[in-house]
């Protein structure tokens, strides 16, 4: 059975029921609309509106879900040498995400968060964390194009608060 998903820009995606169920948000909406796998009529007569996801981002989400639809639930976390909690991003996922420029990656993460697709969300969150890890504040600001809204005095105060040892 197939499910119709409609994006914010009015694009309709017809996906397998199993793919649709990978999103907790879509699952809840289907339940609320009495759509069931065994009731073709309910699936044909309804579509799921997803006003927070665009066509371009939805296509990427579906591509990821297609790849992972047969995955077993896995233990998400492990600690690295510095005690950081990390999620192992598979080679396929690394390859999948590396072509997204940063703005698109953030949109994809926003969509994964809204759709509640945990595996995709963890992949992106870990990918961005890996980009940040070990970098200085000015490198991070430049990499992510963030405008600093702190004065030098405020920065000094924050450094004082976060320091633990006298230099």
């Amino acid at each position, binding site marked *: 059975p197939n499910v119709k998903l409609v994006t914010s820009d009015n694009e309709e995606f017809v996906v397998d029921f199993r793919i649709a169920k990978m999103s907790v948000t879509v699952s809840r909406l289907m339940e609320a609309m009495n759509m069931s796998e065994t009731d073709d009529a309910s699936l044909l007569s309804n579509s799921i509106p997803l006003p927070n996801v665009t066509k371009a981002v939805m296509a990427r989400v579906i591509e990821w879900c297609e790849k992972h639809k047969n995955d077993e639930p896995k233990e998400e976390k492990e600690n690295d040498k510095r*005690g*950081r909690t990390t999620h192992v991003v598979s080679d396929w996922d690394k390859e999948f995400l590396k072509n997204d420029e940063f*703005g698109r990656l953030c949109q994809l993460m926003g969509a994964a968060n809204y759709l509640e697709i945990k595996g995709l969300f963890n992949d992106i969150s870990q990918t961005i964390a890996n980009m940040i890890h070990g970098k200085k*504040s000015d490198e991070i600001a430049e990499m992510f194009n963030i405008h600093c809204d702190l004065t030098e005095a405020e920065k000094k105060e924050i450094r004082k608060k976060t320091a633990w040892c*006298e230099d």
Partner: protein
Amino acid sequence: MEENNASSTITNLPDDCLIDIFARLDHTDLDEISTISGRLYELAEVSRSRSKVGSLKARRLLIAQINREEIVFEMSFAGQYYQLKLTDPDSGLFEKLPDNESALYYALVGYLPREIIEMNIQTMFVSLFDRATVLLRRFDFEELKICSIWIDIHFLSFFHQFLSTRTVASFNLRYAEFKYDLRDQFISVLLAANFESIDLQLEHNYLVNEEFMKDYANSVILPALFVSIQCHDRPFRPSSAFLKNLSKFGTLSYSNLLIGAEMLLPALIVRLRQRRKGAWRFLVTRDIDQAEIDAALEADLEFNELHAERRRSIRIANTPSMVKFRTHVQFITMPMLQFSAHFD
């Protein structure tokens, strides 16, 4: 979601997403992020309060009360000693000690118990504990050692907050005093920390009873408990219901604990079957005779008398797992015996 454009940066993500990203970093990364923008600083602080933010591994934290108004924190980290004196709010950073020497540790270890003075807690001091919590949040410790501390509600609050977000493998308390109404809270904090090892050196036994031992035995796998009481009270004899908990201790050294000889062999055999190293040392009501050993031995267990070592041993057949044990007279005037066992 907007289509891809220049405004689609990390700061467009909702707070929950940023907190999730930051929780995958360590404190040094968060220090850097904190100075980028006010919002990122706030979110980094939220992430730090979550225990899964990566921590630095420090060896030991020693907390000692020096006088009525001064507590010193000394930390051993990356082969270097650092000290924090909580005397005034502006002194709130760890200082690297010169010559890489501990100022406190050797002075306090082996130190005889001294009078522990109730601390002169004022509002300022409470804020200093808060400061210590902030400074210590980036570390996990192999050992936490507390010396000569007056444990009041403020210290207890700090202790609880510190242990609820940090991992500490072993805990050592070397003389402390507190109002008895705080005892249960202190024990709750101790047990919730899931220490692999607890070492209590006390002047009087105001902490360890059968319930505490039962709860600790069940809080972690094969815990190690060391109890040393300075003033000799009457031996403490747990009930027969304690048997099943005794065998859960990987190591148990308690000079004043008196175990009924009738419960010893069954517990010893259950413990042996855990096949993990450890040691037991406490008192027993009497010696165990050969008939009791023969009756307790199961088919896969082998008994030996090690005359040269004046020990007996039980081995699990065809395995290296064995326990060597002995009983000997502790005090000529007392009917009970000292019991010691080593599990290999």
